[in-house]
């Protein structure tokens, strides 16, 4: 049983998806989705404990030995990522029941859960697979499911957002597969570990450099690295609330992992960061993401869109950590994967509660929310504090390590910019505080029902509580991230 964990992680949600379509029943499909998500979390935790301390689990699909067959290769990096994805899934799936019932037409419920299961299968597949082409297929499985989930939003703009994401996402995935194809032509293998072993023997470096460029641009599109983020704000703003929370916490994080894996485990740190100016380019784009996206966020009229732009900025912090190419920098980046997943997941879950009560998500609709929905509003304020990086929240942990990593390299100006970026976050979080606490509620709204239902509040507050808990007790998250960084820097997979 233990030896089958890597494949079960992917196959359980993959099989559940068509089962849900056969069930044709919303509640039954939801129960199945809950079971699948919780089972995924249990498996991911099992895998993480299996590889703790620098272990490696290799699973040969259909008993075809690698490098001929497809291999699932799990180390502390992707086990950590699988835990993030399935943890968010396990929380969000509970929340989905009520939120989806309000936002998606009844007859589409079972299809919604089916798409959710497919998306989960795809994301976990990307995380675990050790095969380049397999990774592309899982990319497309998760992306196609995502396009459908976004298009299910109530607003008609959701359709256009899904279409634009489909075009950009497909271009990104195709760039990725061109890169993998060039690597295959030069090395004759698709197994990533095998590829890494053969790349040093390649005599003509030009196609390999082209592959690096194609993969970087393709994956950057998927992870919404500035300036390739244009699909993200609308997709997050108009998708159903539960979908936004799930995607914001998982999809971009998985893409960051793919970039890390190719940079450190396939091409190798020396080829990517020493021989090429990748670090400087990534640094410039990350800082641009932090500042441009934060400033744009301040001027948004729609709260959900504002937090979507804030996601682009936070992804900038993650790639900033990667660009340092040091143990501390990588630790900061990887721990921020986890911390941002918690923070943004919680924020979008809470906003979903407001979406049930308010007509729209504009700031004018939020007036007096502090009085109408005290728990929800207070949760959003706590999540906002974590985005800013106030001590006692997870955001502080990431920012602290980013600053330390910058100072390690003597780049005090980057440390200064990280802190300055936090001030911009303060500005946009303050806009919510002002609308929610410093205005009298609309009398029409005040007559309506108050707080969000418990089935939505509890999962959201669970994540907010985790934001505070992991901000105080960093042993688990930082330990995992530090170990993952060590494994990546070692280079061998």
């Amino acid at each position, binding site marked *: 049983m233990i030896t089958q964990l890597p494949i079960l992680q992917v196959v359980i949600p993959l099989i559940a998806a068509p089962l849900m379509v056969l069930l044709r029943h919303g509640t039954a499909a939801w129960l199945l989705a809950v079971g699948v998500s919780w089972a995924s979390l249990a498996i991911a935790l099992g895998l993480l404990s299996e590889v703790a301390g620098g272990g490696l689990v290799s699973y040969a699909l259909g008993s075809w030995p690698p490098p001929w067959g497809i291999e699932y290769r799990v180390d502390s990096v992707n086990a950590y990522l699988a835990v993030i994805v399935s943890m968010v899934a396990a929380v969000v799936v509970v929340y989905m029941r009520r939120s989806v019932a309000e936002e998606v037409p009844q007859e589409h419920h079972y299809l919604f859960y089916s798409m959710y299961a497919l998306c989960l299968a795809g994301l976990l597949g990307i995380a675990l697979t050790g095969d380049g082409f397999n990774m592309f297929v899982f990319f497309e499985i998760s992306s196609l499911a995502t396009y*459908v989930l976004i298009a299910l939003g109530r607003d008609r703009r959701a359709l256009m957002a899904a*279409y634009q994401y*489909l075009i950009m996402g497909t*271009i990104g995935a195709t760039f990725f597969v061109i890169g993998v194809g060039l690597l*295959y032509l030069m090395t004759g293998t698709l197994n990533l570990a095998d590829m890494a072993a053969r790349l040093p023997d390649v005599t003509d470096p030009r196609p390999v450099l082209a592959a690096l460029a194609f993969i970087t641009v393709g994956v950057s599109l998927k992870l919404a690295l500035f300036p390739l983020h244009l699909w993200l704000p609308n997709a997050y703003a108009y998708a159903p609330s539960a979908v936004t929370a799930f995607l914001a916490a998982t999809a971009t994080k998985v893409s960051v992992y793919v970039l890390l894996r190719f940079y450190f485990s396939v091409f190798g740190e020396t080829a990517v960061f020493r021989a090429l100016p990748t670090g400087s380019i990534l640094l410039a784009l990350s800082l641009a993401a932090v500042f441009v996206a934060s400033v744009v966020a301040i001027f948004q009229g729609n709260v959900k869109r504002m937090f979507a732009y804030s996601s682009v900025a936070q992804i900038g912090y993650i790639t900033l950590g990667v660009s340092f190419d040091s143990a501390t920098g990588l630790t900061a980046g990887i721990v921020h994967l986890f911390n941002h997943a918690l923070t943004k997941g919680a924020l979008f879950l809470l906003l979903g509660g407001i979406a049930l009560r308010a007509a729209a998500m504009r700031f004018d609709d939020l007036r007096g929310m502090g009085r109408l929905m005290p728990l929800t509003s207070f949760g959003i304020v706590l999540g906002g504090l974590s985005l800013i990086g106030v001590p006692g929240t997870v955001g502080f942990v990431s920012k602290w390590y980013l600053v330390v990593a910058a100072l390690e390299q003597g780049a005090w100006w980057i440390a200064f910019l990280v802190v300055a970026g936090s001030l911009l976050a303060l500005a946009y979080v303050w806009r919510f505080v002002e609308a929610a606490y410093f205005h009298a509620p609309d009398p029409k709204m005040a007559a309506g029902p108050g707080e969000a239902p418990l089935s939505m509040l509890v999962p959201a507050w669970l994540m907010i509580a985790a934001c505070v808990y992991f901000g105080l007790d960093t042993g688990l998250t930082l330990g995992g991230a530090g170990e993952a960084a060590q494994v990546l820097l070692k280079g061998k997979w």
Partner: protein
Amino acid sequence: MNIASHYSYWVTMFLVIGGLYIVIARGNLVKKLIGVAIFQTSVYLLYIAPGKLIGGTAPIITEQFQVYSNPLPHVLILTAIVVGIATLALGLALVVRIREAYGSIEEDEILTRDRDGER
């Protein structure tokens, strides 16, 4: 390096750039999807062309044949074609829904309508 011996790569690059150009330059949602489809097709060529050796046969070991073509790219591209069709079908389905919601499939008209709706 001989340009003529690499003509399949030239065709591939032409399709890559042509497809991307259509996606960027056209405002019609269906035409954009056709651009994406051409762009994806170029990848099929990129994978398959190097797998073929002139005079090569299927990799069945007999004494008669010494030169074999690589069958793996074909199998990979079979998967890629399925992915491409799924993407195109989903994209077209979205365009149908967009047309129902907006009454247009021209990107600029749709964006104008959204802007008017916000006021």
